[in-house]
């Protein structure tokens, strides 16, 4: 009971402080082996989508991200899908991406170090919006129907910020 009380009281005292932190840098290669760094997108709003081929909710969310990318890329949005699949599953990624008709870059993180840098629990899907200044402005774990509305609102707010 003491444990439960402490855990519940903790919820009120700990701020959700991912927002405002600098986004950890990374260098990852895409499905064509081209390197991408987070730094090269400085000045744009970047939506990082951590996903995996075995993650059902990730696959449901992807068409919504593609629509967001299509609509908002002209306003400065970059979407980077970062696969949390282990090295052994990498051959399955491109057929899945092709089947979904995704056009935003898919990056490979076979050693899962970038995934862990943002999300030690490795909950999937995991969405991180990085502002134009390189700081994290929004984080969302998991996907339920309708979550894409709140995510889009966060992205549009970041795009509207100076």
């Amino acid at each position, binding site marked *: 009971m003491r444990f439960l009380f402490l855990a519940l009281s*903790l919820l009120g005292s700990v701020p959700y*402080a991912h927002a405002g*932190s600098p986004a950890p840098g990374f260098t990852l290669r895409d499905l064509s082996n081209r390197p991408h760094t987070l730094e090269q997108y400085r000045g744009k709003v970047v939506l990082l989508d951590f996903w995996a081929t075995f993650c059902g909710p990730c696959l449901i969310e992807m068409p919504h991200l593609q629509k967001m990318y299509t609509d908002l890329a002209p306003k400065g949005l970059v979407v980077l899908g970062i696969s949390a699949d282990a090295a052994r599953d990498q051959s399955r990624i491109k057929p899945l991406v092709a089947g979904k008709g995704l056009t935003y870059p898919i990056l490979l993180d076979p050693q899962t170090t970038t995934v862990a840098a943002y999300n030690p629990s490795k909950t999937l899907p995991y969405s991180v919006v990085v502002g134009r200044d390189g700081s994290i402005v929004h984080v969302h774990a998991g996907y339920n129907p309708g979550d894409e509305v709140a995510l889009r609102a966060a992205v549009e707010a970041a795009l509207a910020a100076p």
Partner: protein
Amino acid sequence: MSIHVLVLALLASAGAGRAEEPAARPGDESVAAARPPPTWGLHGTHDVRARYWMLDARLPNFEDRRILDYVEIVDHLDLKASSDRWTAAIRGDAVSLLANRYVLDGVLTYEHELVPDTMRGPTADTWLALEKASLEHRGQHLTLTMGDRWVSFGRGLALNLVKNTDMDIDTSLRGGHASWHGTSVDTTAVVGVTNPQQVLLENPNVRLLPDDGHVVAGVRVERFGRVALGAHAVGVQFHPPNTADAWTRPLGARVAGATVDAPGLAGIDVFAEVDTFFYDEDAIPVDRGWAAYASAGAYPGRFQVLAEVRAAHAAEYLNAYAVGYELAAGPTLEYERVITEDSAAAVNSNDIVGGRLRVDGRWGEGEHAFLPYLALAAFHDRDLGGLHFNRSPERILHPTFGAQILRGETHALLNAGVRADLREGATSDGGLDADRMAHLDLDLSFPIAGAVSLEIAPSAQAFGWGENLQQQGDFVNLSNTVAVKFGPRWALMAYNDYSDNDLIRSTGNLGEHLYGALEAQWIPTPGHTLKLFGGAYRAGIRCAGGQCRSLPGFEGVRLGYTGNF
């Protein structure tokens, strides 16, 4: 208990230090974006599970059952300080069992010995450890890491130490790691000692496994271009003794491998890897082995075609001394959601060749699409040792089919198939000797009204044995999950399991073979999740990421908290 209170108190004080910052709500993020660019940040994740575990386990060959009745509390605390160039990270793990001890005739007795004699815990039923620690610097091209880091080479056949969240496996390499990312060349060098995670988060901790400390060194170079060529080498010293000969005796295992990666070559993505294994351990019955994997992907029109082949001989001996995890795990080409005690042997076979062909199609676009697939996997498993039940080599056929249907917020995912493990030879009465399995799983989610949605996920397996070294009974596994989600904050789940598999050592709470449970999930603020579970689920073997683990059943109550701060 005091350990967990201390951790929570520290966490609470960290939060109090930031009390001047308003708690973020959806829509607050633009305020953060308007601030000056930050130079560093401190954040963490705290996972807590408190389980009241009433284990009613079936003992092999006895009518009696073993009954355990105690509370288990588990903490995983990740802390990370990072700037755009530096990251320092630690993870502390703690587990303790309450109401697990009694005094009998003046002697303190632990009912359940969580911490074996070879490990040092505060008590026999409490364990506390700084599980992971690392310091990383990321330069423009060079990344240096001291401490714990995950590493894999190629497709994982030679080295694959990564976190496997599905299986509660998290083995890192504790040592030094250097990566050079050039325009056309990537180089990685690692040396360290394997550091497996002791404390399971999602599954009951029965008896902790000590660190086994295999020394691993490896280097991989990959040159990118139209065709990317890679080469790697790995050396392993198993269980090095604390004597001088640890540095002078031959390595227990050496692996050398090469990869070819040609994405989009004439419209086809081609990948191939070959590795050779050399052993110098008395307990390993061979001197060398090999493993190979290749894949080809093509995209004609609305279809996606993926062909994969794998072959391995005596490659699994690399994992012989790694208890509870694997040093290397390449593609298995199996549908791992339906691995049974029988087919787990093929996943970790020391003599197997096989392949899988999968064709996916797509009709429709974006949020309104129909995505069916057909797949056929075939293997020739010649290994009779290890986990194998069969007395002769097997030819395995496993066709599967399925579809994903998207219609706005409605989503359905279906997978089904049949598997036959055909023995080379007839049964004693001249019949077809084969293990057979049929399986089906479905995941259906759709909105009901407003922000309320429903998810239903039933699955079924029916398994029939052929003639085995030790005969077991045929069995049926059924499970179902019904989840009602009330917007982004609340969800209620109901779980049902049924299994009459003689090989599992748990009994149901609703009947000998029937298990039931309820769970409520609450997300009070973004980044914080509370889950309350009550009921039972069955024991059984689970496989994911090429790794299989026999997990205990559970009956009782579980409170889980995950917080990001």
